[in-house]
């Protein structure tokens, strides 16, 4: 009797396993973004460019034998808790084979440590910039298409020095993004002989930062560097600092290059506000991307859209290479990005890439934000520019070295 039950259970199990593979006509990919929360204004453009990559893949033959790549969108809300929740749902319930995102560093670290790494799912973040992400023990499964803030913080420090700002006060959001950036900035700025008159963290989402600003201003510097998000406490802080005239010059990093400060404070009030942000190197690929992205109604100059597109496209290439097997995606991603002299693939050239992968030939993805050749930590070096606020939003001011 027991054996019969066991046999029945066994055959049922086998049957479900069979239907499981047979029904897998679609390959699911998780897009986790900070749809709500302090980067809410950036997320729509980033998701739009990721969706464009998915649409292109499906229009040009899909994955494997014409299976469709299907997106599972999740809201990581730019915080570790929601990031973990969204990743758990995508991996354990929807059964995605790879994750693109989350967007914010804290969410990336949490989602990687508690979901993606234990499950062996590859994760590429288009905008998680904290230096801490390089240090994750991830069995080579966590990558990013955006450079670590170690580069950005240092480049910003050198650029400000070059602009003649010798003493600054630094306020940073107390999370992985803010502290990573602030520490890199501080080390380089001081190494170059600059003076940091105040260096203080703050918590997000408070109603008033005037006492924080008064403390920061005590050092006597007329420049405030804010490492925060432009839709969150960074905006509140910038507003209160401008209204009370605590500082003359304001500097932000990529998180502050959001439309919210311009929309809410007015471009005329932001004449002394500059931000740094990663930019794509000028290339044919970037032009192709820019044209395609404009056609779907996107703004190719928006922050992180190129890296979002590239992250999604690379994930699709890796899934194709791995034959849709989620345990092999991370390894495949490393393989397809390991050669620098393979056949060049530009944005949108899915059909060509698919043929080459099927033929087993090496490819080199020349993406919208650059050519991808991840280092041992899954990072890429980056190119940055300084932006100022002009009549039509952010305008590029200078390249950063």
């Amino acid at each position, binding site marked *: 009797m027991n054996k019969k039950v066991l046999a029945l259970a066994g055959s049922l199990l086998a049957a479900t396993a069979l239907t499981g593979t047979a029904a897998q006509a679609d390959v699911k990919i998780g897009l986790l973004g900070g*749809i*709500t*929360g302090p980067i*809410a*204004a950036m997320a729509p453009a980033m998701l739009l460019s990721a969706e464009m990559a998915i649409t292109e893949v499906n229009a040009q033959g899909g994955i494997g034998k014409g299976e469709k790549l299907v997106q599972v969108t999740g809201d990581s809300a730019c915080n570790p808790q929601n990031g973990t929740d969204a990743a758990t749902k995508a991996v354990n319930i929807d059964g995605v084979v790879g994750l693109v995102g989350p967007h914010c560093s804290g969410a990336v670290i949490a989602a990687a440590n508690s979901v993606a790494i234990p499950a062996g799912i590859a994760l590429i973040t288009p905008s998680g910039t904290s230096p801490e992400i390089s240090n994750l023990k991830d069995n080579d499964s966590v990558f990013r298409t955006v450079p670590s803030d170690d580069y950005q913080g240092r480049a910003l420090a050198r650029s400000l020095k070059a602009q003649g700002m010798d003493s600054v006060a630094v306020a940073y959001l*107390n999370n992985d993004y803010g502290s990573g950036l602030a520490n890199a900035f501080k080390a380089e700025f001081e190494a170059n002989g600059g003076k940091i008159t105040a260096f*203080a*963290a*703050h*918590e997000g*989402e*408070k*109603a*008033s930062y*005037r*006492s*924080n*600003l*008064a*403390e920061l201003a*005590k050092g006597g510097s007329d420049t405030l560097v804010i490492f925060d998000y432009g*839709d*969150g406490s960074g*905006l*509140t802080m910038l*507003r209160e600092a*401008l*209204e*009370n*005239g605590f500082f003359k010059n304001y500097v932000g990093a990529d998180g502050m290059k959001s439309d*919210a400060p311009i*929309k*809410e*404070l*007015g471009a*005329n*009030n932001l004449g002394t506000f500059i931000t740094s942000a990663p930019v794509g190197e000028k290339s044919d690929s970037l032009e192709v991307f820019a044209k395609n992205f404009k056609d779907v109604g996107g703004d190719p100059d928006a922050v992180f859209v190129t890296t979002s597109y590239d992250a999604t496209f690379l994930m699709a290439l890796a899934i194709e290479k791995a034959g849709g097997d989620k345990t092999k995606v991370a390894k495949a991603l490393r393989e397809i990005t390991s050669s620098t002299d393979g056949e060049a693939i530009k944005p949108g050239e899915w059909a060509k890439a698919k043929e080459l992968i099927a033929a087993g030939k090496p490819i080199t993805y020349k993406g919208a934000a650059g050519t991808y050749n991840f280092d041992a930590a899954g990072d890429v070096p980056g190119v940055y520019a300084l932006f100022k606020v002009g009549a039509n939003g952010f305008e590029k001011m200078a390249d950063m070295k």
Partner: protein
Amino acid sequence: MTVIDFLNFYIVPGIVLGSIYALGAVGITLVFAILRYAHLAHGDLATLGAFLALAMVQLLGMPVMAALPFVILLTAAVAVGIDRVFYDAFRERPKIITVMSSLGIALMIRAIVQVVWGVDTQTYSRGLVRPEDYFGLRLRDREIYTVIAMIALVVGLQMFLSRSKWGKAMRAMSDNPNLALLSGIDNRKVVMLTWVISGGLCAAAGVFLGLNTELKPMMGWSMLLPMFAAAILGGVGRVEGAVLGGLIVGIAEELSVLVLPSEYKAAMAFAILLVMLLVRPTGLLRGKVL
């Protein structure tokens, strides 16, 4: 640091913030005293009030202060509606069920705000408002409005509670619900009145928070803890205690920067809450409930 700087950058923001906390804390304390549970949707109800005012400002072109009375009434009606539809069903059940359901209501209200108004940060009026100089004190109009409106609303409420028939009925319910029911006080009307008052004050708190900073879907939720700290600090069930508690929490948060690293500012409300529960759980003014 001069005295005037100390007032401008530490005390004035503390008082403005404290007034906003106070408006929310009065509602929390009333609900706690009369209905005997912690209402966790209070912060998000404030968010709803702030965004309703935004709708009036944008659609009808009203100034925020003119929209305020309408928003207070609207949010009061929403609060009564929520009570009728959800909390009323749990009236005879253990209170923890209502507390948990209020958490669900909080998530629902936030979701509605995000669906209707989007997730971007918004403001009532664009651009900057630089403060005006009053003998060295730098004050904005909106800060003066906030404090005056808080005082007016609370004094009005205090008069209502101590003078009017229904105010007395509410206090009777808070002191001894069974005795109040026996003496013929209409339970449903008192509950409704409680929601009208706390919903309205909640909306005012949200509007003033939005006026002084920005409107975000999470704005009310992040204000919930300081509001609870204020209510408990002042003594649960005491309106004047909630006001005092709100002001103390607001000023303490701003002053904490002087002695603590600024990342611990947000922990100030927690610290006050903990110390108060340990040392004097009845609150500064001897609350009636805890």
